[in-house]
């Protein structure tokens, strides 16, 4: 028997125009990591990504990214191969928590010169480069949805939300992009 097929609510969606493009981010491994600072440092070594301790910052290396979400909370995003959880579960006696949220969240990439204008249609954060530089991230809101926003490049953002909110987030982004 074939393995069950994976269906994401944003499959096959695309939007481009008016200085902004939207694209669904494909399957990723996502882990919610909770640990104290000391443990987090050791886990970062094991992962090969130094976990950020500066609030609202993101560190990427080797296809993996660690986003600072709270004083003891990181969102780890990597390729869809389970390598993050495999690595973390082999770290011996450290005390921490990982929960697999690969399917809980889904994400949209927003690119283009109008991307901040589109995001600011629903997100009240200051997204200027001075206030939200490249490699910043934030747990914030977009319209009525809770999201995690991560700036990959000057004009490229990664917006994470819960699966059932993605249709709303996508349509809001598209509506905002139309009139940006």
């Amino acid at each position, binding site marked *: 028997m074939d393995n069950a097929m994976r269906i994401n609510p944003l499959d096959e969606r695309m939007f481009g125009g008016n200085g902004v493009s939207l694209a669904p981010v494909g399957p990723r491994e996502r882990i919610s990591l909770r640990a104290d600072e000391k443990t987090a440092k050791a886990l970062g070594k094991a992962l090969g990504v130094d976990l950020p301790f500066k609030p609202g910052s993101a560190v990427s290396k080797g296809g993996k990214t660690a986003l600072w979400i709270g004083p003891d909370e990181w969102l780890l995003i990597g390729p869809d191969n389970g390598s993050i959880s495999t690595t973390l579960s082999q770290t011996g006696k450290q005390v921490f928590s990982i929960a697999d*949220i690969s399917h809980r969240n889904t994400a949209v990439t927003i690119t283009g010169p109008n991307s901040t204008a589109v995001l600011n249609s629903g997100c009240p954060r200051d997204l200027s480069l001075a206030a939200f530089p490249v490699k910043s991230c934030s747990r914030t809101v977009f319209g009525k949805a809770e999201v995690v926003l991560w700036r990959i490049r000057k004009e490229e953002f990664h917006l994470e939300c819960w699966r059932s909110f993605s249709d709303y987030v996508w349509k809001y982004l598209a509506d905002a992009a139309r009139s940006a």
Partner: protein
Amino acid sequence: MSTSTPNAGSNRIAGHGRLSPAKTVTFTFDDKVMTALEGDTLASALLANGIHLVGRSFKYHRPRGILSAGPEEPNALIDISRDSARRQPNVRATVQQVFDGMRAKSQNRYPSLSFDVGAANDVLGRFFPAGFYYKTFMWPKQAWDKLYEPIIRRAAGLGNAPEEADPDHYANRFAHCDVLIIGGGAAGLMAARTAAKSGKRVILVDENPDFGGALLSDNTVRLDGKSADEWTTETIAEIEHLDNVTLLRRTTAFGYYSHNMVSLVEQVTEHMAQPDPDLPRERMWQVRAKQVILATGAIERHLVFADNDRPGIMLASAGQAYLNNYGVTPGHNIGIYTACDSAWATAFDLKKAGIAIAALVDCRAEIDPALLAEAEALGLRVMKNHAITSTAGRLRINSMTVEPVNGEGKTDIPIDCLLMSGGWTPSVHLFSQSRGRVAFDEANGRFLPDVYTEDCISVGACNGTNEMVEALAEAAAAAEEAIKSAGGKPKKVKPPRVEHASSMNGFLIGAAKGAGPDDFVKAFIDFQNDVTAKDIRLAVTEGFHSIEHVKRYTTTGMATDQGKMSNMHGLAIAAQTLGKEIPEVGLTTFRAPYTPVTFGALVAHSKGDLFDVTRRTPMHDWSEAQGAVYEDVGNWKRAWYFPQAGEDMHAAVSRECKTTREAAGIFDASTLGKIEVVGPDAVKFMNLMYTNPWDKLGVGRCRYGIMCREDGFIYDDGVVGRLSEDRFHVTTTTGGAPRVLNMMEDYLQTEFPEWKVWLTSISEQWAVIGVQGPKAREIIEPLVEGIDLSNEALTHMSVAEGKICGVPTRLFRMSFTGETGFEINVPADYGQAVWEAIWERGEPLGMTPYGTEAMHVMRAEKGYIIVGQDTDGTVTPHDAAVDWAIGKKKTDFVGIRGLKRPDLVAEGRRQLVGLKTKQAEIVLEEGAQIVDDPNHPVPVPMVGFVTSSYWSESLGHSIAMGVIDGGHGRMGDTVYIPMENEVIAAEICNPVFYDPEGGRVNG
């Protein structure tokens, strides 16, 4: 549609105005086709075409004309449309730009503007004093709803709301800046120019299509030797291209909220003939500014004299704006009535343009000699220390009567237009909204900003700085200070040299001559709500001494213009009548919005699909294809039932229940809240949060948990599985998911921050497929790998991890139906595929999909409670008969002390029981009250109510649950449920109706 008519209206003055005579547009007013110039407002276009009469007043239906040239306009409210769906009532003609093809209609008149039957109210005016409605329509009381209110509502009110749905879309934008400058007149431009140089982020907004403010209609002033127009154009050109500057035209700052949050509304397409459909009609801006500079200017007041509201009577500043900005003269034989110098400049401009000035009446005795000299040089007839005491002309003014201020002797002067000025009221609206306090400037009769509470500063006319040279210096200094406060380095910008600036000196607030307490005349102070000087005096005489009460009783200042012109007059007359000083009487509160804002702009993106979040489960597409009917549970769409051809809800639900009990059913439980509780202190934490004991729950076992609040009442429930020593998979109710996690986090962060346990919401990580019924195991067994599903290996209330259809699963053996059952958790993206694979297996074996209604019926047949339906926040675990879930040896859990309170252990508490109707086919109504004696005289003592009630197809009779006083001790008693047409008898019973021994779950 453009025509080649050269002048677009007979009142255009060649060589005047900023509009190009080459660009004409065509519009209709009350179905009459007219021509305007591109850039005209509807008001300037109508005046160009010789039209002053544009509407009827609110209460007396008096003919009214265009009064102003700006946002303060109280009279000229017009219905504007592009097409039948794009129609908007109550648009101010003075701010609406004409576009090609625009249709404008006057309002509040029947059958026509020039003949209006409602005008009878004017003749009967003496019978409509202030508070008329309050006083008159009191009796008989019943007549209010059916007779008075509908008639009054039809007769009163302004325009008619559009009937079709708004086809346009609207946008929202959050923005941040260092300095927000509100108002793009001379002061605002100077501030923007200075602030822009620093490189800090600057937003400059102005409500008009062009920046310049009063400069746009000033033909005299020279700035650095340039005309006002040249200087404005150069200043804008200098800053517009800068990356750090955002210029927003046609944008009104309408609300000032705490922490320098200012709301703006930008009109994007209102002036366009063929707007790009992708453009939003309006865009809402929510700006968070480090510093705000208010350069909102001042608004000219009218004068309060008898019959001061005829069409053709306007503000002097409006006359100047129509001439100098739009190239339109409002008349050809114009009278001027003023208490302020600025109207003299208007008279000079008109005279120089070749318009006859019949007389310049100034009520002041002392006039600046320079003005007198210029008037003389121009040959103007000046009547100083005179007043206008009445006017004539039904649909347009045709004469004015002039009298000496201190003496007798009337002179009638024929005119076709009267321009008036009572001086200028600083626009402190936004400052006041920011919770700033104003102080009264006695010498100039105005309120000025005094105490600031936000990081803002007022400059120019809104700060009482009327001399342009001072206003510009003040603006530059304020901008430097704002840049410094925002952490920037200000750069000095030298304000321009100012020559030939006109003066704004002189004022009159309150009633002018001939409108005093003894004069029986209509001297309007509030044009939009038809409030006269007399109404204010009457209100005070009748005992309304607070200005807020006077306002509400007379409705002065309560119309859509919020009394921009009338407030000072109303206040002055009230103060005079009370014999008090103006500051003692005080000012009414300024509230947002400054000018009316459409619902569309406030709603912005949140309409249609985006009105609210619609959450769909991973298997939604499948259930939709099966024709499921959905119910809304929170934001979720849950499949309610799956009707087959010809089935109603009752039939579908009965079939779904019966099939599940006899064969199998498949159920989408994905919306259940799920929390992963992880860490060495996880079990300690679970012991604290739930009433149950968790120490002895083995790995791979599940338990039904009850969670209380501190007061001991049930808060939530759900099945909890232990995946390993330090990892629990907790489920909550669908609606309770966020609040349960919040409460857990609250305890963890505030009470036990040192505990090594962490919580993660995994509600949406897992799709949950319930497979229930005698054939459940047979159906799923071939799809599962790595888990022994046998009754011995995976007993009821167990959990195991393995694979199904090749993907990971947390497979729970549990039941909310009373049948053998499984809840198969798979990562959400696999939900639909696994569901379909199970369906493919199950359908030939007689399996049915079932919805939430069948789920409710089957759980009620088993007496399983639903928190929030069978409990209401006053039900303890004892009351709900789930006290077996309380760990008796536990020394602590949330609610343990609450449960010991005397009232919670008292006899006779309302307790959950089963109810069986004596007539099996009667289904009780949920929420129905229960009584012991239906024949008891009213009021009948209630002993409880029905919480859940269904038809049970499996049992062949109705079933119900309810809470009844002392219910647990009353098994077998008969109670009564009185309904509208009958009294239903029911027997109190054990709520477990189906399979009371409970053997079926272990099959």
